[in-house]
């Protein structure tokens, strides 16, 4: 069982948390203008990296807040957690960026 550092409550047991998939995927605006391919990229395509992975977690049995996490999919190790909208930890910028999905260049998301 992992220890996860809730940005609001501090380090807690994994059993208090719920995983919420890849983080940082902004919902596109003006969805009606998107091609099927662009919309499909947003809905279905995830990076699935070997290594550092930007994730969303929720402190479900706790403060109920969603937050960002950077976790290594190889070692399970968390390299940091941060509130939605806050500055990510330094390791975040070092992670290997997944190849940009097809739609990403034209899809503007709301700021996180």
């Amino acid at each position, binding site marked *: 069982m992992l220890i996860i550092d809730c940005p*609001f*409550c501090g380090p807690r*047991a994994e*059993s*208090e948390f719920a995983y919420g998939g890849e983080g940082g995927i902004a919902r596109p605006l003006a969805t009606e203008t998107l091609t099927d391919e662009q919309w499909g990229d947003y809905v279905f395509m995830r990076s699935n990296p070997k290594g550092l992975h930007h994730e969303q977690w929720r402190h479900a*049995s*706790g*403060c*109920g*807040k969603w937050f960002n996490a950077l976790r290594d999919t190889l070692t399970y190790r968390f390299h940091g957690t941060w509130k939605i909208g806050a500055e990510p930890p330094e390791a975040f910028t070092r992670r290997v960026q997944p190849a940009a999905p097809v739609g990403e260049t034209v899809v503007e998301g709301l700021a996180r």
Partner: protein
Amino acid sequence: MPADTLMPIAIADLAPAPLRVRWSRQQAIVNFRGDPADAALLQALSGVVGLPWPTRAADCPNDGPADAHHRVVWAGPDDWFVIAPAGCQSAMAKSLREAAGSRHHAVTDVSSGYVVLGLSGPAAAEVLAQGCPLDLHQRSFAVGASAGTHFFKASVWLWRVQDDVFELLVRSSFAGYVQEMLERCTLECGIESD
């Protein structure tokens, strides 16, 4: 002489007194949602309950034993439970609304949605440790500390009132489950209901 064959640790380790369990079903419980960065709001809220208004997980201000007094439970950065004497939920909700004024907020009476569970006795922390992953040692979870966590598979809010007195906020529909788990957990120390 092997010490434990004559005086088995298992037996010697038994808690000296049963766990005392008290379910308080009548308390007024009001949920308040609002902006934690609004200092004036927090001050006004604090005035309503006559206690400091907590802004982090660790604190659970209370003014004494249950029933007649108040608690404010930090449930999230913008989320609190005010626990007050039975019957005063409407008045409490009204006062909290007035304190918030025209600010964006939400006040919800959830008195029937939760039950306050009191656990006391020297076995209390060990019993909780059977289903709760928090470190409940005094050095980590002192009197006044509070946390949202789980007891077995029930999400609860937990705070420490005294060294060996804890209170939990349990969703009403989980009360039977929590009682069942308490009974299963106390086969050695025993359990007494108030």
